[in-house]
C-alpha cells in the first residue's frame, strides 16, 4: 500500500468514526421524535446482536481455521443453537428482562436472588475482569490491522493507535451511551451505529470471501483442490474441546455483558426475538461461509510465517486490492469498536448500578436522604467507568501486546463470563436456587477461573510464577493450576471450563440447598421462574413499606429519573388514580412501579434499597396500611352510626321513661281520683243508707224526725247527682268538648248575680262578700251559664278551703287593655306553692285534707270552660300578706260592631 493509501486509510477510518457519530446522533434524535421506526425493527435488533462478532471473529476465525481447522465453527455453533432454540431460553430471559426492567446481567442475577447488592457487585467484578482482556484484544486487533494496512512490521506494535482508538470509543460511548440512566429508554443512536457496523462487517467479510473464491481462484472447486494435506485432518471435531467451545460460545451469547445488553436490555419487542432466531444464525452463517476459503487461500497463497489472524486483511493487500483492504480494515474496525462501545456501556451500567450506587446509598444514609442528585452521580460514575474500563483495556493491551494469539484471549473471557451461566439458568428454572447458592457458585467459579485460566494465561508474567504453574503451590501437585487433582494433559481451556463450571454448579446447588430462600428471594424466584405463568405479578407483595409520602417518592424519582420523566410518571399515576392535580397517593402500586422504574435505571438491588429508605423495611405494605385505614374508617363510620343510633335509643328510652313516669303519675292520679270519687260517693251514700235504715227499722219515729231524715236523704241524693254531673263534665273537659252556647253578655252582671245567690245561702260559717270596682259596661262573648258555673266554683272553693271564723270574699273586675278581668280573693290559708299548678289538673286531689268535701274537679272543669270560651282561669301569685287565694278570670272583650267596621272596612258584619 502506498503512503497515500495509508493516509487515505487513516482518513477513511476517521471519516467512518465521524459517520458512526452522525448515525448515532441521528438515531437518537429520530428515535426521540418517534420517526425512523425502522430503528425499532427486528432487523436492527438482529444486526445489533452481531456485536457478538468482534474483531476476534472477524480476523481470528480465519486464523483459527488455519490453525485448528473446523474449530472456528464452534464459536458460531453455540450462539446458533441458542437462537434456534430461542423458545427454550432466550424468550424467558427477554420476558424477565422486560417485566423486571433488568439493566444488565449483574442486575439479572442480583434481582433474581433477592435483589442482592453483593451478587450485583460480584457479577460486575467478574464481568469487568473478563472484559478487560477482551477489550484489550479489540485494541490489539485495531492496532495490528492498522499496522498491517500501513505496511508497518508487526513485531513491534505501536500502542498509540490503540490509545487513540480507546479515547475515541470512550468519547463515543460517553456521548451516546450515557445520555440517560433508564434502561428502558434505549440507546437508539448506539444501536443504529452498531447495526451499521454489523452491515459493514458482513459486507467486508462477504467481499473478501467473494474476492478470494472468485477473484483469486476460478471457482470453489479449484480452491478446495488446493487444500493442504493435513488441513481438516484434526480428530478434534466433537472432541472435548469442541464441546467445550460450543458450550462456552453458547454461554457467551447470553452471559457476555454486551450480548445481554443488546439481546435483553435493548430489546424493544419480544417478537423481534422470533425474527432474530433465524436471522442471527443466518448472519453468522454468512460471516463464516468464506472463512475456510480465506484460510485455505492464506495458507496456500501467503508466504510462510504470515499471521493467519490477519489473512483477511493481508490477502487483499497482497492482491493489491486496496479498496477491498480498506473495506476489510473498516470491517475489522467496526467489529472492534462496536464491541468496545457496547461492552463499555454494559459494564459502566453495572459498575454504576452495582458498585457506585450502593456505596453512594450507604454513604448518603448518614446524610439526609433527599439531598444530592443521584442521577447526576450515576451518569458521572458511568462516564468515569467507561473511561476506566477502556483505560484498563488499554493498559492490558499495552502489557500483553506481544503475547498469544487473539483467539486465546477471547476464550479466556468466554470462560469467565460462562460463570454466570449456572446462576442464570438456575435462576430461570430452579425455584430453590437462592442467594447463598449463587454467591458460592459465582465466587467458586470465578476463583477457579482465575486460578486455572486467567492468571496462568499471563504466562511467565503471571503473579503465581512459573514454579507454581509447573509444580503447584507449596509443591502440591494436586493443586497445579492447569492440572487440578491430577487432571493432567487436558487442554487448559477444557480443564479450566470443566473445573470452574463444576465448582460453580456444585456450590450453587449446595448453597441453595443449605438454607431456605428468604421471602424476598422466594418472591423473586417465583417472578423469574414462573414469568410465563404471571409469576411477575404473583405474590405482588413486597416485604417492606411503611407509609411513604408521595413527596418523598417523587423526590426520589426526580433524583434518579430526572425532573421531567419523574413528573410525567407521577402525573400518569395521578391520572390513573383519578387525581387531576397534585401527587398521586402512595399506594403499593405506585411504590412497586416506581421501584421497577428505578430498577430500570439503577438495578433492582439499589432501587429496592432506595425505595426501602423511604418506604421503610417493615412487614406491612402500604396497601395493607391503606386497607387497615379503610377498615378503620369503616369501623369509625360504623361506630359513629352506632353512636348515633345509641344516642337516638337513649333519647327514645328517656322519652319512654318520661312517658312512663307520666303514665305512672297519671295512673297514680287516676287512683287518687278514683279514691277521691269513691270517698265523695260513699259520704252521701253513708248518710242516705244510715237514715234509710233508721226510717225503715225505727217504729217509734215521730213525723218531724221522719220528715227531717227524708230531707237529709233528698239533699244527699242531690249531692250525689251533682257529683255525677261533675264527673260527666270532667269527661267532657278531658276530651275538650264542653258544650257552650256563646252570647254577647256583660260578665259583671253574671258575677253579681252569682254573688247574690251565694249570700242568700246560709252556711255554718258566716260569709262576707266585699264588692269592689267593676269594669262597667264590659261586653264579652261567653256562655252565661258556664261562666256562672265557674264563678260558683271559685266562690264555693273560697268558702270550703277556709279555716277562718268569718269567710271574707273580695271580688272586683276591670278592663285591662281590652281584656275583662275579674279577681276573687278569699281570706283562707291560700294554696301551697307546690300545689299551684296541680290544683288545675284533672285528677288532682284537694290540696288540703280539709278540702275533703268535693272531688277537687271544680278547678279543672272551670279552667276547661274558660279555655273553651277563649278566656283564662289562673291562680294569682301569693302576695306578701301571706294568706288567701286569689283567682283571676279573664275574657277578651267584644269589640263593638262600629269599631270593627271602622278598623276593618271589608269585613262583613
Amino acid at each position, binding site marked *: 500500500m502506498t503512503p497515500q493509501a495509508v493516509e487515505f486509510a487513516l482518513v477513511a477510518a476517521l471519516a467512518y468514526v465521524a459517520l458512526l457519530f452522525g448515525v448515532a446522533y441521528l438515531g437518537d434524535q429520530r428515535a426521540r421524535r418517534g420517526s425512523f421506526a425502522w430503528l425499532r425493527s427486528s432487523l436492527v435488533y438482529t444486526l445489533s446482536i452481531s456485536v457478538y462478532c468482534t474483531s476476534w471473529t472477524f480476523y481470528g476465525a480465519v486464523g483459527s481455521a488455519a490453525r485448528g481447522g473446523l474449530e472456528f465453527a464452534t464459536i458460531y455453533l453455540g450462539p446458533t443453537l441458542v437462537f434456534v432454540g430461542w423458545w427454550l431460553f432466550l424468550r424467558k430471559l427477554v420476558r424477565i428482562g422486560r417485566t423486571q426492567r433488568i439493566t444488565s446481567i449483574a442486575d439479572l442475577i442480583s434481582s433474581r436472588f433477592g435483589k442482592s447488592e453483593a451478587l450485583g457487585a460480584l457479577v460486575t467484578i467478574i464481568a469487568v475482569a473478563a472484559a478487560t482482556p477482551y477489550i484489550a484484544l479489540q485494541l490489539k486487533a485495531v492496532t495490528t490491522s492498522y499496522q498491517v494496512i500501513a505496511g508497518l512490521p508487526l513485531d513491534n506494535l505501536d500502542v498509540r493507535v490503540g490509545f487513540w482508538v480507546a479515547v475515541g470509543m470512550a468519547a463515543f460511548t460517553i456521548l451516546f451511551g450515557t445520555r440517560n440512566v433508564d434502561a428502558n429508554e434505549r440507546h437508539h443512536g448506539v444501536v443504529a451505529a452498531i447495526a451499521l457496523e454489523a452491515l459493514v462487517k458482513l459486507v467486508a467479510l462477504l467481499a473478501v470471501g467473494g474476492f478470494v473464491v472468485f477473484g483469486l481462484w476460478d471457482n470453489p472447486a479449484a480452491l478446495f483442490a488446493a487444500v493442504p494435506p493435513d488441513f481438516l485432518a484434526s480428530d478434534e471435531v466433537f472432541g472435548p474441546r469442541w464441546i467445550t467451545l460450543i458450550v462456552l460460545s453458547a454461554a457467551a451469547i447470553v452471559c457476555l455483558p454486551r450480548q445481554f445488553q443488546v439481546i435483553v436490555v435493548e430489546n424493544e419487542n419480544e417478537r423481534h426475538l422470533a425474527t432474530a432466531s433465524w436471522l442471527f444464525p443466518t448472519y453468522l452463517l454468512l460471516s463464516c461461509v468464506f472463512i475456510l476459503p480465506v484460510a485455505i487461500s492464506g495458507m496456500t497463497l501467503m508466504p510462510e510465517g504470515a499471521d493467519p489472524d490477519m489473512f483477511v486483511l493481508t490477502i487483499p493487500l497482497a492482491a493489491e486490492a486496496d479498496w477491498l483492504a480498506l473495506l476489510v480494515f473498516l470491517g475489522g474496525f467496526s467489529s472492534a469498536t462496536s464491541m468496545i462501545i457496547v461492552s463499555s456501556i454494559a459494564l459502566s451500567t453495572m459498575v454504576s448500578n452495582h458498585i457506585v450506587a450502593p456505596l453512594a446509598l450507604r454513604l448518603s444514609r448518614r446524610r439526609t436522604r433527599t439531598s444530592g442528585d443521584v442521577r447526576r452521580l450515576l451518569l458521572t460514575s458511568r462516564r468515569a467507568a467507561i473511561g476506566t474500563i477502556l483505560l484498563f483495556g488499554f493498559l492490558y493491551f499495552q502489557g500483553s501486546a506481544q503475547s498469544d494469539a487473539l483467539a486465546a484471549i477471547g476464550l479466556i473471557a468466554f470462560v469467565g463470563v460462562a460463570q454466570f451461566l449456572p446462576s442464570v439458568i438456575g435462576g430461570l428454572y430452579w425455584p430453590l436456587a437462592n442467594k447463598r447458592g449463587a454467591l458460592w457458585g459465582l465466587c467458586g467459579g470465578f476463583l477457579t477461573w482465575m486460578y486455572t485460566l486467567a492468571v496462568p494465561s499471563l504466562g511467565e508474567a503471571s503473579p503465581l510464577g512459573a514454579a507454581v504453574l509447573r509444580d503447584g503451590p507449596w509443591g502440591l501437585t494436586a493443586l497445579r493450576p492447569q492440572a487440578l487433582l491430577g487432571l493432567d494433559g487436558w487442554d487448559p481451556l477444557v480443564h479450566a471450563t470443566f473445573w470452574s463450571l463444576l465448582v460453580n454448579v456444585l456450590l450453587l446447588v449446595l448453597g441453595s440447598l443449605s438454607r431456605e430462600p428468604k421471602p424476598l428471594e422466594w418472591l423473586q424466584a417465583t417472578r423469574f421462574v414462573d414469568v410465563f405463568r404471571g409469576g411477575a405479578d404473583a405474590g405482588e407483595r413486597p416485604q417492606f413499606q411503611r407509609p411513604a409520602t408521595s413527596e418523598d417518592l417523587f423526590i426520589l424519582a426526580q433524583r434518579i429519573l430526572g425532573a421531567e420523566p419523574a413528573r410525567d410518571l407521577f402525573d400518569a399515576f395521578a391520572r390513573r388514580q383519578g387525581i387531576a392535580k397534585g401527587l398521586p397517593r402512595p399506594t403499593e402500586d405506585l411504590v412497586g412501579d416506581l421501584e421497577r422504574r428505578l430498577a430500570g435505571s439503577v438495578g433492582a438491588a439499589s432501587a429496592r434499597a432506595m425505595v426501602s429508605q423511604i418506604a421503610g423495611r417493615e412487614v406491612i405494605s402500604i396497601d395493607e396500611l391503606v386497607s387497615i385505614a379503610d377498615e378503620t374508617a369503616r369501623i369509625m363510620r360504623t361506630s359513629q352510626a352506632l353512636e348515633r343510633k345509641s344516642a337516638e335509643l337513649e333519647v327514645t328510652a328517656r322519652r319512654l321513661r318520661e312517658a312512663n313516669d307520666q303514665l305512672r303519675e297519671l295512673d297514680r292520679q287516676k287512683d287518687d281520683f278514683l279514691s277521691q270519687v*269513691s270517698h265523695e260517693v260513699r*259520704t252521701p251514700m*253513708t*248518710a*242516705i*243508707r*244510715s*237514715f234509710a235504715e233508721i226510717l225503715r227499722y225505727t217504729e217509734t219515729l215521730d213525723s218531724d224526725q221522719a220528715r227531717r231524715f227524708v230531707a237529709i236523704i233528698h239533699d*244527699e241524693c242531690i249531692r250525689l247527682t251533682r257529683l255525677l254531673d261533675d264527673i260527666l263534665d270532667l269527661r267532657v273537659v278531658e276530651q275538650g268538648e264542653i258544650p257552650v252556647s256563646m252570647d254577647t253578655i256583660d260578665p259583671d252582671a253574671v258575677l253579681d248575680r252569682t254573688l247574690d245567690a251565694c249570700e242568700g245561702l246560709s252556711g255554718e260559717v258566716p260569709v262576707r262578700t266585699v264588692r269592689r270596682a267593676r269594669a262597667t259596661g264590659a261586653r264579652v262573648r261567653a256562655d252565661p251559664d258556664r261562666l256562672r258555673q265557674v264563678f260558683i266554683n271559685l266562690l264555693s272553693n273560697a268558702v270550703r278551703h277556709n279555716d277562718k271564723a268569718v269567710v271574707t270574699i273580695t271580688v272586683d273586675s276591670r278592663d285591662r287593655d281590652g281584656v275583662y278581668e275579674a279577681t276573687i280573693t278569699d281570706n283562707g290559708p291560700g294554696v301551697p306553692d307546690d300545689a299551684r299548678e296541680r290544683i288545675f289538673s284533672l285528677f288532682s286531689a284537694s290540696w288540703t*285534707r280539709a278540702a275533703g268535701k268535693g272531688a277537687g274537679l271544680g278547678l279543672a272543669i272551670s279552667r276547661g270552660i274558660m279555655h273553651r270560651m277563649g278566656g283564662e282561669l289562673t291562680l294569682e301569685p301569693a302576695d306578701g300578706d301571706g294568706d288567701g287565694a286569689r283567682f283571676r278570670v279573664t275574657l277578651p272583650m267584644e269589640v263593638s260592631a262600629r269599631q270593627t267596621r271602622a278598623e276593618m272596612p271589608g269585613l262583613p258584619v
Partner: protein
Amino acid sequence: MPTRLLIAEDEPSILESLVFILAREGYDIATARDGEDALDRLRDPKGPPGLLILDVMLPRLDGFEVLRRVRDDPALKRVPVLMLTAKGQARDRQMAEQMGADAFIAKPFSNQDVVRQARRLAAP
C-alpha cells in the same frame, strides 16, 4: 251511769245519724267536727270516754294522726277506737289495725254493724 262516747265526724248528716242510732242505745254522746277538736274533748276533765268513734278523713288532724296521739298518750291509750272510713280500701284497714284501732267499719255502713261493734267495745 251511761258510758260516755265521743264521735269525731266532720260530715254533719253522717254525724247526725250516728248520734241518733247510738243515743237510743243509751250512750252518753259527745261530738267533735275535726281532729284537734276530738283530741281536746278526749282530754275531758271527767276522764277519757269509754269509746271513740273516729272518721279517717277529718279536717285539721286526720283520723290516723288522732289515733296515733291517742295511743301515745298514757292517759288515753286504753280508749277503744272504732274507725270509720269512706275509703274502704284494704290499705286503710290494715293501717288502722297496725296503729291499734279496735274495729274498722267502711262507709256506707249498716247501722246494726256500728251498734254491734260499739256494744262489743264498750257496753252502754
